[in-house]
């Protein structure tokens, strides 16, 4: 998976490392700001409300 991605990235090693870091950070940001807020509402983590 990561090897496949690595071989498809253009440029030399530093350029690929930079691109890879950028991809990982982007995915993490999407998770943190979009997916997790949505998931935390729909998962039964600390359901302090009442009556269902």
């Amino acid at each position, binding site marked *: *998976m*990561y*090897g496949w991605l690595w071989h498809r990235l253009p440029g030399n090693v530093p350029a690929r490392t930079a691109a890879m870091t950028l991809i990982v950070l982007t995915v*993490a940001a999407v*998770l*943190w700001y979009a997916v*997790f*807020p949505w*998931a*935390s*509402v729909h998962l*039964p*983590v*600390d*359901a*302090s*409300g*009442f*009556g*269902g």
Partner: protein
Amino acid sequence: MGFAVRQVIHTTGEIALTAGAIGLLFIGYLVWGTSLRAASAQRQLGSELNQQWQQAPARGDAVEAGPEQFHLSTGEPFAFITIPAFGPHWRFTLIQGTAMAQLDVSPGHVPGTQWPGQVGNFAVAGHRVTAGNPFWSLPSLRSGDLVYIQTKLDNFTYRVTSEKQVLPTDVGVLDPVPGHPGQRPVQRLITLITCNPAWTGTHRVIVTGVLVSAKPR
């Protein structure tokens, strides 16, 4: 081993590691991310409330004679709650509603229950963990601890009288006379609700208090 088999094992390992990393990130989000989000929401709600109170006519104007009225839509702030037993910096706004969308930014007033100072039962629910852990210490409240509710017109003081644990289905604690549906209330109660044990939804901690003073601001 053939190339294909090794490839499958390799990819499976990578997916498992990635899932683990995402899981850790999610835990980090629940512990820190939700608190940061709630803290900025609290600042916003607090200044919104102070602004509203400055614009609105204060008690003494003919318009506002009689007991304080509350007409709020879901998510709107209406009061500050202070509990000295939780430390000198513990203060949250209270908003209308207790769905996850509200609890994730602030403790909320349980719709259908009474309002601060009213005869009956003023019920407030808040997260035990996440969103700034507002009610983390709720189970440690003892009889005699004070709960202050500041609204536009009044400062209400409630004194804690009891604490118990119930199931989430035991909605009788929200009755005007808790546990006695249909009975006519005479006391002015507050009910604070959070989940127990922390991180779960299996039980609720219920802290009940009674109004001991109501002073116009």
